[in-house]
């Protein structure tokens, strides 16, 4: 994985994250694991496993902290990953 780019906090510059690389583009029963890099509310900035950053609505799993692993679908986190592992 390449070095992290400098953190941007301008939310307007981000699209919502759900760019599924493998499988259905967005609308199927596919969700993307991401890591929280900026734990803002109601949208956190998160990074996926392909090193892309995007906004994620986190109301359904709040509160979130930097480093939390979330499962995102349609730009919204629907589950925490490690909590149920």
């Amino acid at each position, binding site marked *: 994985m390449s070095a992290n780019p400098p953190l941007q906090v301008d939310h307007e510059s981000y699209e919502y994250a759900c760019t599924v690389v493998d499988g259905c583009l967005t609308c*199927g029963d596919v969700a993307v694991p991401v890591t929280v890099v900026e734990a803002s509310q109601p949208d956190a900035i998160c990074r996926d496993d392909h090193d892309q950053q995007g906004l994620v609505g986190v109301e359904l799993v709040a509160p979130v902290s930097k480093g939390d692993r979330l499962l995102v679908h349609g730009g*919204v986190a629907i589950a925490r990953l490690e909590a149920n592992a």
Partner: protein
Amino acid sequence: MKFVDEFRDGDLARSLATQIAALAEPGRHYKVMEVCGGHTHTIYKHGIEDHLPETVELVHGPGCPVCVIPMGRVDDAIALAKLPDVIFTCFGDMMRVPGGDGSLIDAKAEGADVRFVYSPLDALKIARKNPDKQVIFLAIGFETTAPSTALTLMRAKAEGLENFSVMCNHVTIVPPLKALLESPDLRLDAFIGPGHVSTVVGCRPYEFIPAQYGQPVVVAGFEPLDLLQSIYMIMKQLGEGRAEVENQYGRVVPWEGNMRALDVLDEVFELRPFFEWRGLGFISQSALKLSDAYADFDAELRFDVPGVRVADPKACQCGEVLKGVIKPWECKVFGTACTPETPIGTCMVSSEGACAAYYNFGRFARSKARTGS
């Protein structure tokens, strides 16, 4: 990569395949339905069937949300997209779904302002930036996707955004399963339950399947080993004469689901009395519409929608594919008139559609050989 590499280990896959084969009783044929299009995609991408005994057949279910949208709803969406001063937004796969007279991408080529988004929250951003336009989001998907639409509507309401609305096509997973179980066309032994829908709804909604129909359900993850382990768990239940709901995907799916997401769905949506599913016909209480509290954001109330029912093209056998009655390659137009570039039916559009999955990963040749036709 965590959550991926450890679920693609070849040695473990071979070991699970051996255990599955050992559980298959000689002379018995097993028909297992994977409900979810995401599972169909994994099965063909990773050649899961190649690891199974000939007697264990995987049947594709109706869990690809693009595939179950009837043509009339696509035509309604196109009619909305062509209205003046409208920006019409949808997920990318919906752009290519054929309606009775073209697709949303055709409407875009003809001048309609149709944009694809990765999230309904992006549609909301577009609405904020374009206060002189009406922005409509075409919502589709099962309970996995409905929370993102619900949160978007809650934010729109809180902001008092008057130029945003939703054409709601969200569907729910349990009613089509009931319809399939009642279908005389199909004799199934067990279900691989949808992983990410269950993240939201939990595992309890499937308990009627073992209780009333005596069939096991194993909620599964999306990596190759997840699926093989789930099939192993199903075979074990069948071998021991058990029928239960089990959760293979416990690292993501809580048994009770996401209660906060369920509350949000409850607030924003209510059940439609009935909804048409492609191939399955009208199923009662199988889809969502906006609740009275959010009726101001309902595009079907805000604008005139034709609401005409359109029959599928004669050549299209998506219905039979969606019910698992035929394999994709058994459709007369598969791979000839109907390809991912020129789809006739919905199952060829989304990469989760069974026809597209067969087409893209070349598994149809093997399936033909296996069934001897």
